[in-house]
């Protein structure tokens, strides 16, 4: 799944846009924008529902509520040493789009135990590379029947990773950017649904169990490096997916350390016209030792096996450990499992960071890792490298289809080292700087490869600077 960042990331799926790349659907690619804005009418309804929940308790209660308005923002600049884009926006021209974000949050409490939260967010669009987008990131009502229970309904964010809930609030972590290898590949961080949190006070600290279930939409981004000859230049293609599922997260926390394990399972299905997923691309032999993968229904072949939906399971482990003397280790590992299709983003990913606080400075070094499972990587490699001889009729079109088909398999093989620091200007603002060196192995769908090329066994150096504030 290719990334659409800001905590929405794309899943790898085949779909009719790609299967019918030279058919009628190709017209949709010329305007590669999801037909369903993610923050559309449903979110407006959600917001209205949340406010109505408050209002239903009576106008007097609404006016008697305590309100708290807060906000956050990051202005981030990132520049790489490569002419092609990494993480949608970062190239040697520099960009403010990768890391800049702003949000406001309204918290209201009718009583100490009943409240509602709405958070509005402005960030680069998850379904268009050239626009900013306004979304409602949170919109939920909460109830704490006792000190140890918290129930929430509405739009909220998964606690699956250590920082997934505060992903957009740069002052809540020291890294200039949360490790992309870890944070950009989850099926979805936002969902509309229910959550329940139970807390136990223990002698060793606090133990928290979060359970959640809900639905969400997810924008998937494919980079079609060669475009759709002859009319379509290289461009990004977006698709909207539906996610439904839940999970459990167990966290143990005390003043010095946090440990977290999580398990989640969601069902992924297409929305709109593209609702079938290829299981694989069958190989069609046209002569001894040569042939092609049927990546499109328009190509002759046995037909592409498809499924309507697939399950996506994730296991996570995280630790944030205070080592004394200002040193801290933060690490997270995740493994995802998909059994029904080779066109998924099942992967192993993680990072480890060592931080040292020195007065207002917190320098750090981070190693992050992301690798797709062997099935998707192998299929991508075979399809991407497949060529039929020019003597075969329609060879150019077949060969082009192979590369487009490969672009529809979103796979990753990369790791990175980063050295950076944050500097706390105040308790509510931080400056951050980072140098990161990314090593691309076999392939990475986080890279927008130039037309006709393969980006493999290359390094990308990225410099990032940002100012982060909450108010």
């Amino acid at each position, binding site marked *: 799944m290719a990334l659409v960042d800001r905590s929405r990331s794309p899943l790898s799926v085949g779909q009719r846009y790609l299967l019918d790349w030279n058919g009628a659907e190709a017209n949709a690619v010329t305007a590669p924008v999801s037909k369903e804005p993610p923050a559309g009418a449903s979110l407006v309804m959600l917001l209205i529902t949340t406010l109505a929940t408050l209002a239903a308790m009576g106008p007097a209660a609404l006016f008697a509520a*305590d309100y*708290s308005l*807060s906000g*956050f923002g990051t202005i981030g600049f990132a520049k790489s040493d490569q002419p092609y884009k990494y993480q949608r926006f970062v190239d040697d021209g520099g960009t403010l789009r990768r890391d800049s974000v702003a949000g406001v*949050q309204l*918290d209201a*409490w009718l*009583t*100490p*135990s009943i*409240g509602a*939260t709405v*958070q509005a967010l402005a960030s680069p669009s998850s379904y268009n590379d050239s626009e900013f987008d306004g979304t409602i990131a*949170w919109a*939920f009502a*909460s109830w*704490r029947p*006792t*000190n140890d229970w*918290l129930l*929430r309904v509405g739009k*909220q*964010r998964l*606690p699956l990773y250590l920082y997934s*809930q*505060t992903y957009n*609030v740069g*002052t*809540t972590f020291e890294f200039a950017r949360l490790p992309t290898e870890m944070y950009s590949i989850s099926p979805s961080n936002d969902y509309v649904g229910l959550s329940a949190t139970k*807390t136990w*006070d223990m002698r060793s600290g*606090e133990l928290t169990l979060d359970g959640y279930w809900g639905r969400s939409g997810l924008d998937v981004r494919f980079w079609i490096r060669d475009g759709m000859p002859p009319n379509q230049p290289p461009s990004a293609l977006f698709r909207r997916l539906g996610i439904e599922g839940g999970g459990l997260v167990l966290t143990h926390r005390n*003043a010095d350390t946090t440990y977290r394990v999580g398990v989640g399972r969601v069902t992924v299905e297409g929305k709109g016209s593209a609702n079938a997923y290829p299981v694989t691309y069958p190989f069609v032999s046209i002569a001894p030792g040569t042939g092609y993968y049927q990546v499109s229904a328009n190509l002759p072949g046995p037909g592409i096996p498809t499924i309507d939906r697939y399950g996506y399971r994730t296991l996570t482990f995280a630790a944030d450990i205070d080592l004394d003397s200002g040193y801290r280790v933060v690490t997270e590992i995740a493994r995802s499992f998909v059994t029904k299709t080779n066109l998924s983003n099942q992967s192993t990913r993680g990072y480890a960071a060592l931080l040292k606080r020195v007065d207002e400075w917190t320098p750090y070094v981070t190693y992050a890792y992301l690798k797709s499972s062997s099935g998707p990587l192998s299929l991508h490699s075979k399809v991407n490298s497949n060529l039929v001889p020019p003597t075969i009729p329609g060879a150019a079109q077949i060969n082009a289809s192979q590369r487009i088909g490969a672009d529809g398999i979103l796979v990753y093989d990369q790791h990175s080292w980063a050295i950076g620091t944050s500097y*706390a200007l105040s*308790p*509510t603002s931080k400056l951050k700087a980072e140098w990161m060196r990314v090593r691309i192995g076999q392939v990475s769908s986080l890279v927008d490869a130039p037309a006709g090329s393969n980006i493999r066994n290359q390094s990308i150096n990225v410099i990032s600077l940002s100012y982060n504030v*909450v108010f």
Partner: protein
Amino acid sequence: MMPALRHRILSLMVLLLFASSTAITQVTDGVVVIGHPTVKRLDAATVARIYTGRVIEVDGVSITAINANAGTSIRNRFLQLFLNQDEDKYTAYWTVRRYIGKGASPREMGKSSDIIQFVTSTPGAIGYIDANELRPGMNVLLR
């Protein structure tokens, strides 16, 4: 009882008494937690849990905590004594808590007279003031 043993026990008692009064002085350091009459006495751990949002009701009473303004001496002493935190750490704690959707830090008031007024008139309210500002009739929860 032998005189030597009696003397030893007496010494031990004096030592314990001294240690106890020292501990009390260290715990409160002139900071007194007060509350509405609906709130019963609290221990330091519960006060810490209230001011970190982990406790919102005590013995069936919904608690509304009040903080002194950031940067004030009384608040700094309170944070250090009861939460073992400084202002930066406390602010960072609540920033995270707010943005994981678990509430906001307690309401702040600038003057101790405002805190006293609010606490004495609001069921379930608690706050903290300097011991010098204690007046007769106030419900002292912890000192």
